[in-house]
């Protein structure tokens, strides 16, 4: 079976930091957070305590979907398609009919279109309407995002969705990488999307007592929890040789992924599981720990994650951990659950491409338990050679992706 180098040739993103790639990168470099008081979520009647989030603002579905199509897609699937279209345009690729049959779409989403079914439940039990919208089923299904991308761009190879809570996008990206590397697909659209700002889902998160009342301050001593986010991000993967042959711009190489499970606890992370996932990614990428210059951390800003992730990084990198730059961009785009790994992959890939490391925003005070270089508040101009992007999920599922700067 072929084992090919895989290039990233197109990027697309919509998040609280902006409606396209340029807006997102500008915000990431400026250390500007998209976290703000939630809009259009009326939780007053149920005493909603989650007041802040990283919401996509000023998104008008009618600008992207014509003829009533917008009503056929849950917001999460709209994000999928918008991000995929941008990535596809950005790649400049033109596909032959044969290539379309060999093109994959592998997406991550933690909850898919559950907002649509919540809307239906509200119609039934709150409004007493006795009926729900007829497209509730196809809008709710978790694979709707991947399916709509497939239909929209005419990609007819393997298409599926991976749902592993907060690791969904990283698992998806890893699967897509391996399909292209191994010759199972000649092109892949991969990433994740999520849209979770409904009263029901916010109340469910509120009950877990992990949401910060103010903002997200990963690795900072005064951190008070995570801040939820939404959005979608997609990348185009192709064999490096094919990308070079068509003269494509190559942002970076994707070169490995590591997957492990803690086999321990639903919500309590371990050091071992994440550490083994990072080692697995390095192994597959044939990368020495010393070659890695940057880690886009899972960095949720919770009491539980940040010290454990810090220890896991120390275990994997040993003395080199003190030379690593680590940041959590969740401080800016929030924790977009099944889309998180995709938003962060784009931050990581652009960091390798532009030689600028995005910071950990909202950082106020060092924590003795979190003793790495977290790039506090200000982006740093450093060209690193390789980077990891970490995602760890409820359920103890860890997925780490390895990227390398591309040198022609």
């Amino acid at each position, binding site marked *: 079976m072929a084992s090919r180098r895989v290039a990233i040739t197109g990027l697309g993103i919509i998040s609280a930091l902006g409606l396209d790639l340029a807006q997102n990168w500008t915000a990431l470099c400026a250390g500007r957070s998209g976290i703000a008081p939630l809009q259009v979520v009326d939780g007053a009647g149920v005493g909603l305590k989650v007041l802040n989030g990283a919401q996509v603002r000023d998104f008008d579905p009618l600008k992207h979907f014509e003829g*009533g199509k917008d009503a056929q897609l849950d917001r999460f699937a709209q994000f999928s398609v918008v991000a995929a279209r941008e990535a596809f345009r950005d790649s400049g690729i033109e596909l032959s009919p044969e290539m379309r049959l060999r093109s994959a779409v592998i997406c991550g989403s933690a909850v898919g279109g559950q907002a649509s079914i919540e809307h239906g439940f509200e119609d039934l039990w709150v409004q007493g309407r006795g009926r729900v919208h007829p497209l509730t089923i196809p809008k709710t299904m978790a694979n709707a995002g991947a399916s709509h991308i497939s239909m929209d761009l005419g990609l007819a190879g393997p298409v599926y969705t991976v749902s592993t809570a907060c690791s969904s996008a990283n698992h998806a990206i890893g699967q897509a990488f391996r399909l292209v590397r191994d010759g199972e697909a000649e092109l892949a659209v991969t990433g994740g999307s999520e849209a979770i700002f409904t009263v029901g889902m916010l109340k469910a998160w509120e009950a877990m007592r992990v949401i910060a009342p103010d903002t997200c301050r990963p690795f900072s001593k005064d951190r008070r929890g995570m801040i939820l986010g939404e959005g979608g991000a997609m990348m185009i993967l192709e064999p490096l040789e094919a990308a070079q042959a068509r003269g494509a711009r190559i942002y970076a190489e994707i070169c490995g992924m590591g997957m492990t499970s803690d086999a321990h606890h639903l919500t309590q992370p371990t050091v071992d599981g994440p550490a083994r996932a990072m080692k697995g990614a390095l192994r597959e990428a044939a990368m020495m720990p010393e070659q890695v210059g940057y880690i886009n951390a899972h960095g949720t800003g919770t009491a539980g994650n940040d010290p454990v992730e810090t220890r896991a990084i120390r275990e994997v990198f040993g003395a080199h951990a003190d030379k690593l730059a680590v940041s959590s961009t969740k401080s800016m785009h929030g924790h977009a659950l099944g889309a998180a790994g995709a938003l962060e992959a784009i931050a990581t890939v652009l960091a390798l491409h532009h030689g600028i490391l995005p910071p950990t925003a909202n950082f106020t005070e060092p924590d003795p338990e979190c003793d790495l270089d977290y790039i506090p508040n200000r982006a740093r101009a450093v060209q690193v050679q390789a980077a990891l992007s970490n995602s760890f999920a409820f359920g103890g599922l860890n997925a780490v992706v390895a990227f390398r700067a591309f040198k022609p």
Partner: protein
Amino acid sequence: MADAVAEKVIATLATVKRIPAENITINTNLQEMGIDSLDVFTLLFELENAFKISIPDDDVRSIKTVNDIVEGVKKILAASPPDPSVGSASPAV
């Protein structure tokens, strides 16, 4: 002569397809205006809300033009008065 049922059907159709009502006439062919099977589900749902009626599945299969819908709705309205138990719909979002 103004036909209230036809006007309401056309207005509902225009909302579902996000197009101006002026672009639709009583003779418009649904397929030609790009109404697919998913649009039909949404359209029937919105018509049931608009007219407070229940449209049986069997009545749906022969619909081809706007006029077919208007005649179908009139038939249902004539057979039974509006059903108040059919609540107003939440709009398609």
